[in-house]
């Protein structure tokens, strides 16, 4: 941690409102972008971002300076985003069970086409396909891939955030790439089969 960051955290731990404002200004894009890439929904991402900073405000006293503040913040962000996904899946299952008993009409949870606002216009469609299959790979691979390709972190930084070794991150990234290629191949094969049947 640099001296400025140390000073900022010290002020934040003392409950200075100005320090909290600085932390939000400094890290809001980082948190929002990470959450958005994981949950792939603007409103949810906004809500989780607020939750992350509320958590920071409430538990900054627990932060020990043995790691970087951004590492600690990334951990909170990822945990919150994954918790949100779990809750959403639970809701989806519950709605399905309710629909079986005919208690309520089934709530529709169709995944909406996600467009990351940071992708260049001409790449939107392809990126959308990549984000769609990104949801289908295991969480640890997805997080490593997101931090590396979307947040631009190196393996060492990802290892610190995920509390694992440099080589484990390398392996996670390689497996993520392989899985994504497989999923994309299946997706494109399906699309091509669908197109052929439509032509006939």
């Amino acid at each position, binding site marked *: 941690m640099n001296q400025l960051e140390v000073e900022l955290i010290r002020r934040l731990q003392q409950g200075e409102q100005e320090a909290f*404002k600085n932390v*939000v*200004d400094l890290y*809001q*894009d*980082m948190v*929002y*972008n990470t959450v*958005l*890439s994981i949950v792939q929904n603007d409103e949810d*991402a*906004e809500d989780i*971002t*607020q*939750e992350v*900073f*509320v958590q920071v*405000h409430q538990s900054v006293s627990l932060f020990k300076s043995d790691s970087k503040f951004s590492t600690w913040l990334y951990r909170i962000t990822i945990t919150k985003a994954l918790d949100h996904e779990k809750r959403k899946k639970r809701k989806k299952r519950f709605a399905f069970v309710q629909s079986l008993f005919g208690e309520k009409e089934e709530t529709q949870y169709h995944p909406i086409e996600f467009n*990351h*606002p*940071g*992708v*260049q216009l001409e*790449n*939107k469609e*392809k*990126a959308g*396909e*990549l984000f769609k299959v990104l949801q289908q790979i295991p969480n640890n691979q997805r997080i490593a891939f997101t931090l590396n*390709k*979307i947040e631009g972190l190196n393996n060492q930084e990802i290892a610190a955030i995920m509390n694992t070794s440099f080589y484990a991150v390398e392996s996670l990234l390689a497996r993520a*790439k392989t899985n*994504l*290629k497989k999923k*994309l*191949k299946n997706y*494109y*094969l399906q699309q*091509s089969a669908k197109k052929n049947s439509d032509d006939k």
Partner: protein
Amino acid sequence: MINDENINRQIEDAFNSIGGIKRATPKPYLLTRINARLSNRVKNFWDNAAIFMSRPAVVILGLCLILAINLAVILQNKSSGNNTVEHTVNVTADEDEYSTTFVTIDNIENPEP
């Protein structure tokens, strides 16, 4: 073959599409919304507690707990009631055997000749 090549190219394109991706930014006035949430959280502590207490699961659990405590107390009283009788009997027996009451001149009824 051509299809395979085409698919591989599409996969490569998909991976390249996120090259040079920029960070997404939240809507303006995030800090204001966070502060509102923070103050709301403090204010709503008792509201949240009330909501929590009125949850059906919590209510049922609470009722079960009260019933269980009542049952435990009744059972305990029953068993301790039996013990009390035995205890009383024992104490009476001991008192008779090792009587500490002394006969004094006041206790003796005056036998009239």
